[in-house]
């Protein structure tokens, strides 16, 4: 594993990734790539990024031992990386700060973003306010209905939220619409893509801005326990929180990396959002990766209780990590995720995001099969305040 160095110059993660976009976007992506190469080599850029993460986001996020839950499960010790404690409530802001700083370097005064659950939209609206940029967020009209509090949050932060009525009216359609905006306003606009997907250089860019999660975790585990975890678990929609915590561990031997996809009603029912578990490679949204598609190559609708995982593709680096066997990918169904959500509330006093609850559910599933001296580190990627309406609805309660 000593030669893990992706992507290559063409944005390839093995057979995945690449730049599959219409010609009009090519120059903008080349420009972004060149600017990022300059920023990457500029210590002042990273200094400002880290300054913002410390003073605006509140990093480093702590590592927390979920002691009561671990005891109840009777096996491995479960630790949380507390991305839920970040400003705006999730890991998303690590990336939006990085991209907004790039946008500012490039002299772009208008930023656009796509959002599903609204977390990336809120994180984008937040940094746009922070740096004085105009912000337009595209959101499927179904998601606008499902995530009303986040829509209002974005508006409070000064962003314009555009409901997208095309296709399935969810995240993938919001992404299509953001691309259409970008192609139309390419000179003035920076597209803040929310996950480690899309055309090169986005998967690399987002990963590099989310790696802070894994970099901190490695130091913190060493400091706290004098060792690294046996297993790192993270939920995977587009895969940005997962790649953020996985990447610094890829070349660390003895650490199993487990990505948890949304199993929805169950992978066997076809109603899920688990392309790595049940899809096949294809091209969508500018990159090649595992995809949920029918035999004609049309993208099929996804199903998950968690809007943030409701995406038919997955970041290309996860496809590579799956194929080379460095990471394993499993699926957790809606009901299992909801059970973990409740357990985490009752046993640990933490309301986790429904997305993160998928990772928690898998940890709770495997912990009893492991020894008490073993360690599972779960990326608790976001807090669940945004999900209380959804959960109340499932309990038959109107707030």
């Amino acid at each position: 594993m000593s030669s893990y160095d992706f992507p290559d110059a063409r944005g390839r993660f093995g057979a995945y990734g690449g730049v599959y976009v219409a010609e009009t976007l090519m120059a903008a992506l080349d420009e972004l790539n060149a600017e990022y190469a300059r920023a990457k080599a500029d210590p002042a850029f990273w200094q400002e990024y880290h300054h913002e993460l410390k003073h605006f986001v509140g990093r480093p996020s702590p590592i927390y031992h979920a002691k009561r839950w671990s005891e109840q499960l009777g096996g491995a010790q479960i630790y949380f990386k507390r991305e839920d404690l970040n400003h705006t409530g999730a890991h998303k802001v690590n990336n939006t700060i990085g991209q907004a700083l790039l946008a500012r370097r490039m002299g772009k005064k208008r930023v656009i973003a796509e959002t599903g659950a609204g977390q990336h939209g809120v994180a984008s609206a937040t940094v746009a306010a922070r740096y004085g940029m105009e912000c337009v967020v595209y959101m499927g009209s179904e998601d606008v209905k499902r995530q009303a509090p986040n829509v209002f949050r974005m508006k409070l932060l000064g962003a314009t939220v555009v409901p997208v009525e095309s296709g399935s009216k969810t995240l993938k359609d919001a992404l299509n619409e953001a691309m259409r905006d970008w192609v139309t306003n390419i000179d003035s606009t920076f597209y803040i893509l929310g996950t480690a997907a899309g055309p090169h250089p986005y998967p690399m860019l987002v990963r590099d801005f989310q790696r802070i999660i894994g970099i901190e975790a490695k130091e913190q585990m060493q400091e706290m326990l004098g060792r690294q975890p046996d297993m790192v678990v993270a939920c995977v929609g587009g895969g940005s929180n997962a790649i953020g915590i996985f990447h610094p561990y890829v070349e660390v031997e003895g650490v199993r990396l487990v990505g948890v996809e949304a199993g929805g009603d169950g992978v066997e029912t076809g109603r899920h959002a688990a392309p790595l578990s049940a899809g096949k490679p294809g091209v969508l949204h500018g990159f090649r990766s595992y995809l949920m598609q029918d035999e004609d190559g049309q993208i099929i609708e996804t199903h998950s209780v968690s809007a943030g995982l409701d995406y038919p593709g997955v970041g290309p680096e996860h496809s590579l990590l799956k194929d080379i066997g460095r990471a394993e990918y499993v699926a957790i169904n809606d009901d299992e995720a909801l059970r973990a959500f409740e357990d985490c509330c009752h046993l640990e006093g933490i309301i986790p995001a429904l997305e993160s609850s998928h990772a928690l559910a898998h940890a709770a599933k495997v912990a009893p099969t492991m020894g008490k001296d073993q360690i599972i580190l779960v990326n608790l990627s976001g807090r669940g305040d945004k999900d209380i309406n959804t959960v109340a609805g499932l309990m038959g309660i109107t707030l």
Partner: protein
Amino acid sequence: MSRVAETFARLQAAGEKALIPFITAGDPSPALTVDLMHGLVDGGADIIELGIPFSDPMADGPVIQRASERALAHKVGLRHVLAMVKTFREQNQHTPVVLMGYLNPVHVLGYETFAQAAAEAGVDGVLTVDCPPEEAEDLTAALTAAGLDPVFLVAPTTPMERVREIARLARGYVYYVSLKGVTGAGNLDIDDVARKIAALREHITVPIGVGFGIRDAETARAISVAADAVVVGSRLVQEIEAATPETAKEQLTRLVATLKAAIR
């Protein structure tokens, strides 16, 4: 010589510009498509661009998105599109057909399988919108081996070094995107297009078609002064949208005739 090259050679000899209408296969229903294609030819279409429906048409405006959705409601996939071309060829052997769409349906079928099936069906060229030259090597090789023309886009944002690369790969014609935006947008600058085309001709030897945002005979005429071909899509799809299944063919023929008369 390919059917596309023959067509351009014939038009050039006659001092004419090509009209390339676009419709989406399966819109408004699969049963009508072949008839509509004949209707386009009746009106004066020189080449037909036939859209492959896709669930996520990122480069298209609302009009062509809706056409894709109508076709997909009838479950029209790439195999059906090829069958339609085959049926069209039973009565028409002279009008080139260029398939235009997104890469994934082609990718899933496999490039070689697709190229062979398309050639057998009577397809002449293929334009995959989201497959720039950087990613097109395998597909281009498969198309060329099957005798099909790979058609590429050139955008207002394309720098000259990329134009040279596109010129190296492109056969049939090059499709110049007349504006920064999606299909059917309304911010076309005719003088700017004319200047760009003149610059492109230093590198591109195949004919240059222009499309995106050409909505009426007046614009088509103005564009045709500089371009070798004018592509009209959204405007025709709107006509299909507004028509009934009974009147669609007649209305399309009439509109195409108006456009062809304007650029002749």
